[in-house]
């Protein structure tokens, strides 16, 4: 009886919270197909907001700009984050380790406004001194990478910590040079984490408004900046259309990624089983 009650309560609570979490997404998908600007009553099905989306040059340009920025940010963050994770996991004693660890982790907790403002002050100072860089693509990438690096580091770090160093030692005993060890042994083992780090920093960059608002120059607007501008002015179903496309992409991506991860995990489990069987036979 008690158990039955608890299960029912659990079911109800889970349903309510999931409804809360998915209501805005559902809302945007539904009203992106509405035939009028109204967003409380569904007046009829139409593709007009999707057509408006394709014609909106600001959104289209913002999309390509954001895609470029997010891709470069993702790559830079994954690479630098992997380096930083290596430093924190493998090198325990070097000059300034405490400072380093503080600097890597700080962007995780620092308000984005502070990151944006301080980087803006640096960029303006440099620009006044040497006339470069113009505020825009490059400065936004640098800002996003600061944030992305920190998140990428956390992801790679957790994978590196559970990494079995005996594998590297074995490779070295067999005569592999340090770089060979890294590329042939270590990298394949942490590749999944690096991909996850890339995806995470890509997403963060693609979604960021605050840092971009501080670091972009006149006429340079990322997709979130364009949307932010529209959003402050009022309701615009074109944005719902953009959101629906994004939701579709992300859902597909997440499903594909989790299938890949699950298959990888199954493969690893099978390998482990085979290994166990092999040891038993021998």
């Amino acid at each position, binding site marked *: 009886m008690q158990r039955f009650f608890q299960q029912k309560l659990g079911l109800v609570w889970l349903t309510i*919270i999931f409804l*809360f979490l*998915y209501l805005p997404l559902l809302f945007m998908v539904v009203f992106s197909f509405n035939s009028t600007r109204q967003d409380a009553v569904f007046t009829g099905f139409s593709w007009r907001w999707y057509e408006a989306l394709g014609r909106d040059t600001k959104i289209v340009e913002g999309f390509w700009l954001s895609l470029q920025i997010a891709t470069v940010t993702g790559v830079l963050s994954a690479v630098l984050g992997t380096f930083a994770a290596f*430093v924190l996991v493998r090198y325990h004693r070097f000059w300034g380790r405490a400072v380093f660890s503080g600097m890597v982790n700080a962007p995780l907790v620092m308000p984005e406004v502070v990151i944006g403002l301080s980087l803006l002050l640096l960029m303006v100072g440099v620009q006044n001194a040497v006339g470069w860089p113009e505020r825009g693509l490059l400065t936004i990438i640098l800002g996003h990478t600061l944030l992305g690096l920190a*998140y990428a580091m956390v992801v790679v770090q957790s994978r590196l910590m559970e990494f079995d160093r005996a594998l590297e030692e074995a490779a070295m005993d067999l005569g592999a040079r340090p770089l060979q060890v890294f590329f042939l042994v270590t990298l394949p083992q942490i590749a999944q984490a690096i991909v*996850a780090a890339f995806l995470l920093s890509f997403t963060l960059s693609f979604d960021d408004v605050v840092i971009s608002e501080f670091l972009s120059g006149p006429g340079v607007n990322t997709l979130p900046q364009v949307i932010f501008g529209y959003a402050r002015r009022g*309701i615009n179903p074109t944005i719902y259309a953009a959101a629906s496309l994004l*939701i579709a992409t992300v859902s597909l991506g*997440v499903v594909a990624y989790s299938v890949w991860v699950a298959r990888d995990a199954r493969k*690893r489990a099978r390998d482990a089983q085979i290994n166990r069987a092999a040891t038993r036979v021998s």
Partner: protein
Amino acid sequence: MTNAYRLLERRLAPGRRFVIGLPFGWLTVFFLLPFFILLYISFVDMGSDIHPFKPLWDSQAGVLRLKYENYLSIFRPTEGGALFQTVYVDAYLRSIGYALCTGVLCLVLGYPFAYFIARAKPSIRPALLMMVMLPFWTSFLLRVYAWKGILADQGVVNQLLMWLGLTREPVQMLYTSVSMLVGMTYVYLPFMVLPLYANLVKLDLRLLEAAKDLGATPWKAFWLVTVPLSKAGIVAGFMLVFIPAVGEFVIPSLLGGPENLMVGRVVWDEMFSSNNWPRASALAVSMIALVVVPLALYYRHLGNAAQPIADGPVADPDPSPKGVT
């Protein structure tokens, strides 16, 4: 053995220098240096339009002039009003207030949620967690924006309330504390749920059986066993919500009215509307205190168990592999 190891170390030395130097240099240039510039500008006078701030070094008098004015003006109103009655102090207190309320709301909604996920069948847990994470991967900005339509005077919620006959006139929710708290709770709920889940799923169920054997009702066992044991998760979740919420910039801009100004927006206005760089910098520096103080308390609470704060939803972007194997 040690000799061979030392030899290896020496062979690896150039690589080691590169591996440390690259991220170290990057962060020094793009994190530490900007921070010191921010600190510097927060201590100087406001300048003209062309040079937004004056140098610290007064070359005419040949002295260093540290200006505390920018910090003092945060607390001291210009036209002789009472101390602490400034827009800045108001914005600070409001930011802390909203962040605390968001934390409490996330805890109230998120704790049972995390609890029931942790008690669900192990086979469906990864799917449930993935469903918690999925909205996180879609745009934060767009999800906040959707609430603007949902909570509007003619929005879905008001239509529903009027249809149910609960109200005749639309209730204003948008641009009030209601929309602010709904938006913030919505965005930060996963940050609370994931650390709580990670904690609750590890709970040894035999302890609950023991409590039951000793005569505790399930309700009592929950409050006396489950909740105290999940304290670490509660504190971690609260921190993960409070810290980003206190510096929130987008949600007050979209869902808040003029009277819901938070400190992030004040820094922006000071910088770009008033063009007062030194005061914007001083405000930004003092914003860091909003994060550092709770963090310091948190680490003291943890003792010296060094656990990175980022153990939250972002630290584990894909929870699905857990439990799959």
